[in-house]
């Protein structure tokens, strides 16, 4: 049924993606601390290694060796499995995401995507939404009021932004006629003018806002806002279980950055003299930077403001956007 070569290739790709993204997620925490520090006229981590680069290793060792505390009244199995859900869904979502244009290595053509399924976009967004079970179960099983509030907020946020992200992405799909991320990428081959951001500016903005909500990043970090609910759903977690939540969050950030780059910003098409792979790296780096930049600049919104803006502003706008796109296509 399956070619052995295909199976091996897929397994190798999956391992590489998980390893690279997990490492990048760790590195992103370092970058975040540095960027936030620079924006606040600080230096950030400086003492471990040159310019604090080995802070990453120090944090990793700390997380791995720290005691894994499970509160007495917590629902143990759920409490223990919740961070795993958060991390795995973040990685599983990457199975259908293409990162680079295909290239040839030792005479063997490699497609840098684990599985090119025809409903890739639906799959990615669906799996990323399942990721909300991580915070939800963690908060409900922790036997802690901050955690419970965090879980409640996670559900509230999820219900609000999912509609917006789904509807906003519908308009570009209508124009391209395919859910496969490779088809979406191939539809924007003709340079910067072909980027969907020019044809669907409103959808781009809406999807970006929904992306910020999906990754729980400021200004929509209601789920784990320190000043209000301590660490939200992660209050009772320590050690590597807490680390899994963190890796999941950063892996989600990378997924959203890749998605926005492919959907609206020309994906991995070569631009002028810059090869496609480098273009993709640049775009994803910019989006990661934007996540940090926004966190340094903007205050966060209240949960009720978040729901208000989702249901009363963003959702009607996305419906109007679909209508206009529909009429234009007719």
């Amino acid at each position, binding site marked *: 049924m399956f070619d052995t070569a295909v199976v091996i290739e897929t397994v190798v790709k999956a391992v590489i993606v998980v390893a690279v993204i997990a490492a990048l997620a760790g590195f992103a925490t370092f970058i975040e601390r540095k*960027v936030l520090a*620079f*924006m*606040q*006229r*600080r*230096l950030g981590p*400086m003492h471990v290694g040159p310019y604090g680069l080995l802070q990453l290793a120090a944090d990793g060792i700390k997380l791995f060796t720290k005691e894994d505390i499970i509160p007495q009244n917590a629902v143990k199995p759920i409490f223990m499995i919740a961070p795993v859900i958060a991390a795995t869904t973040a990685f599983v979502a990457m199975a259908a995401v293409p990162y680079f244009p295909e290239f040839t290595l030792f005479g063997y053509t490699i497609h840098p995507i684990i599985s090119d399924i025809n409903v890739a976009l639906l799959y990615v967004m669906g799996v990323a939404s399942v990721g909300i079970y991580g915070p939800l179960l963690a908060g409900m099983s922790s036997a802690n009021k901050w955690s419970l509030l965090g879980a409640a907020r996670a559900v509230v946020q999820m219900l609000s932004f999912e509609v917006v992200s789904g509807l906003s992405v519908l308009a570009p799909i209508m124009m391209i006629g395919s859910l496969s991320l490779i088809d979406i990428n191939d539809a924007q081959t003709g340079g910067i003018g072909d980027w969907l951001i020019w044809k669907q500016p409103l959808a781009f903005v809406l999807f970006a806002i929904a992306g910020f909500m999906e990754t729980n990043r400021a200004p929509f970090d209601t789920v784990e806002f320190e000043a209000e609910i301590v660490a939200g759903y992660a209050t009772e977690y320590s050690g590597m279980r807490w680390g899994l939540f963190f890796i999941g969050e950063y892996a989600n950030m990378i997924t959203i950055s890749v998605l926005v780059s492919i959907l609206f910003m020309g994906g991995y098409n070569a631009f002028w003299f810059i090869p496609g792979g480098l273009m993709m790296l640049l775009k994803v780096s910019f989006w990661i930077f934007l996540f940090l*930049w*926004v966190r*340094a*600049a*903007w205050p966060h919104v209240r949960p009720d403001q978040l729901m208000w803006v989702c249901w009363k*502003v963003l959702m009607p706008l996305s419906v109007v956007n679909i209508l206009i796109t529909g009429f234009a296509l007719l």
Partner: protein
Amino acid sequence: MELKDFKRRDIGSAYIFLNTEATPTDGWQAFKRFVKRTIKGELFVGLWIVLREMIRFDIHTLQYPLEKIEMSPRYRAIHRLLRLFESGSERCIGCGLCEKICISNCIRMDTHVDEKSRKVVSEYSINFGRCIFCGYCAEVCPELAIVHGAEYENAGEQRAHFGLKEDMLTPLDTFKAKHQKEFQGFGALSANADENIKQTPLAY
């Protein structure tokens, strides 16, 4: 003014009201305010400010154990006993004024008259656990013998922490290398005082 003037709660005319934006009364006005705030670009002003600070890279961090701030001459930290520049002998004449004026009673000194019938200080100690670094001793000293240094890293293991004469007195080799710093005088400005001048809030 009488007591009833102070008790008046109705001071409507005394308040200066700011010219703030009116609170929206109905949904349409609230929506208009929302649109105005969204389009106004205040969010992007915020983005620009943090990016500008990142590009300027005007870092205010002092990496403490490696870099230290230059203390002002006015700073009152661990005391120093100085030597005379001409002869290198101790400045202290054993008058006992510092011991007398010390409000936390932490200075003790023993004196005797030596063979040249000069009064010399045989023991001098300050209990830094009690010292409140008020600076009276340095202020009262007629010979500028006891002054405050800039040594502020003075954590101790016990409440009583005595600084003895040999701890505070300028060592002879330091003195011979001409490293004894003269006390700048009360209210002296630091060397980099010009750099530290800032506009008062009234100016901006």
